[in-house]
C-alpha cells in the first residue's frame, strides 16, 4: 500500500508544532457519529454481583446427610448463582472498558485524574468478585462503578442523583437527575 512519510527532521519540526498547537482530529471511527454510551448496564451488572453474593449467603451450607434430591437442588442453585456472578462480573468489566476506551477523551482524564485508577479498580474488582464470594468486594465494585457513572454524566454536562435501585438487592443507582 502506498504510504509517504516525511523525513525525520521535518517530522520532528511538525511534532514540535503539534505540541504548541494540537492538530485537528481526523476520525477513522466505526461507531455512529454520536456514539451511544450509558453506564447503566455496568451498574446493573455490579448490582447483580451484589445480589448473587446475597443469594449464595442465604443458601447456606449443604445440609449434612441431605438426600440426593435435596443435594441436587442445592448444587443446582449454587451453580446458577455462581454462573450469573461470573457473567455479570465480566459484563461489568466489558461495559466499563468500552466507555473508558471509546467515549472518554484525554481532556476528560485531565479533568478527572482519578478516572484511570477508577477503571483499573473496577477491572480488578470485577475479577476478584468472580474469584471469590465476597460481599465487601461486591459493594466496593458497585461503589466504584457508581463513581464512574457520575463522572461519565458530568463530562456530558448532565447532573446526576443517587436513587434507590428499588430491587430486592437494595443499593443505589446513579442516574441523570
Amino acid at each position: 500500500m502506498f504510504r509517504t512519510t516525511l523525513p525525520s527532521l521535518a517530522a520532528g519540526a511538525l511534532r514540535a508544532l503539534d505540541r504548541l498547537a494540537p492538530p485537528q482530529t481526523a476520525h477513522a471511527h466505526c461507531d455512529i457519529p454520536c456514539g451511544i454510551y450509558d453506564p447503566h448496564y455496568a451498574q446493573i451488572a455490579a448490582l447483580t454481583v451484589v445480589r448473587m453474593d446475597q443469594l449464595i449467603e442465604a443458601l447456606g451450607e449443604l445440609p449434612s446427610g441431605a438426600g440426593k434430591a435435596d443435594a441436587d437442588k442445592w448444587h443446582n442453585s449454587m451453580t446458577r448463582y455462581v454462573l450469573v456472578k461470573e457473567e455479570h462480573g465480566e459484563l461489568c468489566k466489558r461495559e466499563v472498558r468500552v466507555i473508558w476506551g471509546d467515549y472518554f477523551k484525554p481532556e476528560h482524564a485531565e479533568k478527572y485524574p482519578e478516572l484511570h485508577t477508577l477503571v483499573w479498580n473496577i477491572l480488578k474488582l470485577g475479577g476478584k468478585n468472580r474469584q471469590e464470594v465476597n460481599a465487601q468486594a461486591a459493594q466496593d465494585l458497585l461503589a466504584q462503578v457508581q463513581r464512574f457513572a457520575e463522572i461519565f454524566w458530568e463530562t456530558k454536562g448532565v447532573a446526576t442523583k443517587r436513587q434507590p435501585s428499588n430491587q430486592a438487592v437494595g443499593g443505589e443507582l446513579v442516574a441523570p437527575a
Partner: protein
Amino acid sequence: MALLRWLATARRRLQAALPVARYAVEGASMEPSYRAGERLLVDRRAYRRRPPAVGDVVVLRDPAQPRRHLVKRIAQAPEGVDAGSSRVWVLGDNAAASRDSRAFGAVPRTAIIGRVWFRY
C-alpha cells in the same frame, strides 16, 4: 470565555487559510494504512490542480456532522468530462470497522478538505 471563543475562531480561520493542515488520526477504520495516533499533513489545495482520483486518501467533512472530519480513501470518482464536478465514493481501508459511503452515500467534492500528503 469571550476571549477563548475569539481565539478558537481566529485559529480556525488561520487553519482554513493555510495550504496545509495537520491532523491526528483517531480510530481504526483506516488500518493498516493509517493507525490511530498517526499524524497527517493534508494538502488543502490538491484538488485545485487535478480532480480527486481513486486511491487518494482524503480528509472530508462528515456528511452527518460537518464539524467532524473523517479520513477515508476514494473508491470511485468521476472521470473524463465529469471529472471536475459531482460526487465521490469514499471507503475506509478497514471495511469491517468503517462508517463510510456505504452508510452515508457519495459525498460532494466540496466536502473534501484535502488530500493526505505526508505522514509525520
